[in-house]
């Protein structure tokens, strides 16, 4: 009898526990269903909360265009007309304002955008011959086809700048920054984002491709005049057949440089702990002077002379003879690190201009680069 009573009590306990579990499951299922219904039900309304914008205004020829944005994605192009035109969708909570202010036309997205589901998506045309200044909090921007100075900065967002015939100043703290030339002067910087400056080469997964030209008969244009690139932890890639002056600073991000300084030009790269890769082609025309204080050096360089222990290479017999040598055979060890000074042309050649690499703890790597046709 006592056993039966205990058994009954156990049965009751199990039944009540099961009922409790079942009720929890039912409640959880109902809550999930409710949340899903709310999400599905409200999603179109959130999307609908984006407001369309379609605005235009006349601009005095030569006026500065000053654009201020919050977030979202914006395509900004130059055109031939003396007017600005804005179209697309604005995020909920944002409004659009166009205002002439002396010689400056101010375009501004005002208000704080609400939610992430419906960001602003804008297409903006401004006069190609105007100076352009863009400031954004968290917008991703594509800027193309301008004749004058372009100064564009966003705190967090990706930037692509191309086909600009004037000076470019571009910066983002956290996004990816890409500048495609030819551009006479570029100053570009990131804090943690990747930075790619290239023309007429495209680098895809470390393979360098020659970009297609619109016309094969087009004159060979000068890719870059002056280039200044800075990052702290982002990877910097600079690919260009030649450059007048390039200054590249990184702190702990890697740097990859494939270029040749033009007549009287100079390429100066510094890195504290990041790896510096110098890519050279058979057309590279420079004297490389590389020092790393606590890092190592590896890779191969083309030699038109036999390396010697004294550090002074001996010209090889045979004018056309060249060979690739391990950089280990060229480096000189000093108390302040290891150094390689090496000419990427046959000696003696008085017209060599330097590629200076200075690393503290980072490695320096030399590699031959094959330029492949565009895929």
């Amino acid at each position, binding site marked *: 009898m006592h056993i039966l009573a205990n058994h*009954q009590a156990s049965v009751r306990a199990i039944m009540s526990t099961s009922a409790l579990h079942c009720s929890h499951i039912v409640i959880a299922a109902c809550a999930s269903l409710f949340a899903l219904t709310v999400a599905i039900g409200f999603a179109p309304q959130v999307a609908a909360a984006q407001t369309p914008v379609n605005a235009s205004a006349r601009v005095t020829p030569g006026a500065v265009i000053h654009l201020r944005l919050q977030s979202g994605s914006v395509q900004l192009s130059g055109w031939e007309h003396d007017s600005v035109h804005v179209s697309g969708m604005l995020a909920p909570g944002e409004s659009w304002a166009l205002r002439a202010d002396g010689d400056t036309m101010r375009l501004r997205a005002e208000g704080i955008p609400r939610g992430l589901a419906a960001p602003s998506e804008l297409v903006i045309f401004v006069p190609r011959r105007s100076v352009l200044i863009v400031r954004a909090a968290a917008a991703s921007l594509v800027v193309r086809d301008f004749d004058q100075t372009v100064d564009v*900065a966003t*705190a967090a967002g990706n930037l692509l700048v191309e086909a600009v015939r004037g000076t470019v100043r571009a910066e983002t703290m956290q996004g990816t920054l890409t500048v495609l030339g030819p551009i006479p002067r570029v100053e570009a910087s990131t804090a943690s984002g990747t930075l790619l400056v290239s023309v007429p080469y495209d680098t895809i997964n470390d393979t360098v491709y020659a970009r297609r030209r619109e016309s094969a008969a087009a004159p060979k244009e000068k890719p870059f005049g002056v280039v200044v690139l800075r990052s702290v932890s982002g990877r910097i890639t600079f690919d260009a057949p030649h450059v007048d002056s390039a200054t590249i600073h990184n702190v702990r991000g890697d740097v990859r440089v494939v270029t040749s300084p033009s007549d009287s030009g100079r390429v100066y790269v510094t890195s*504290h702990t990041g790896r510096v890769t110098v890519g050279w082609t058979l057309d590279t025309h420079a004297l490389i002077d590389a020092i790393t*204080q606590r890092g190592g050096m590896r890779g191969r360089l083309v030699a038109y002379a036999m390396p010697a222990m004294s550090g002074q290479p001996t010209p090889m017999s045979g004018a056309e003879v060249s060979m690739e040598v391990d950089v280990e055979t060229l480096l000189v060890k000093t108390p302040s690190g290891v150094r390689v000074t090496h000419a990427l042309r046959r000696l003696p050649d008085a017209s060599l201009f330097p590629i200076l690499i200075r690393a503290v703890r980072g490695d320096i790597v030399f590699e031959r680069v094959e330029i492949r046709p565009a895929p």
Partner: protein
Amino acid sequence: MTDPFAPESDAAQPAWRRWIENPKYMLVLAVVALAAGIWMSRNTSRNAAARAELPPPADCRRFPGACAKDLPSAPPAEVVALHAEVAAADSAWRATLERERRSGVFPDKGLTAMRDALVATESSILDARSLVNDAEQLGDADARTRALESLTVAYENKRELLLRARRLLEEAI
């Protein structure tokens, strides 16, 4: 014969069961849990705020010299002016950051990137200073010159970063 489906008397139930089925106890428990939750979340927020205010720790893994114990407190004489310039830029950045906290327009991921970048640049300065110090102790003039060049570049990197970030922040506000 006892009815197996008859409700159990309170006395037959275990003590814990009686306790959890008593609404008064459950109410007290809920109030205690709520108070504990509020207290813990406030504490966590305070810790996060305190961490944000603290000077960031150096990155000793990538910049081993940044944590050297024998580093002199003053920078080498050649870079004193640059050191002061960077200190001024840092102070101006902090003032701008304080104003930004009230506006809240700068995105968090931008601020996080900036905080990490400041740790890296400061660590590179300390690391380069340790190299200068090592060269001085060894009496190697060439190594000292090389380390001073690195130190100058490290200071310039931090100064440029602070100036850029401050300009961006001020224009965003």
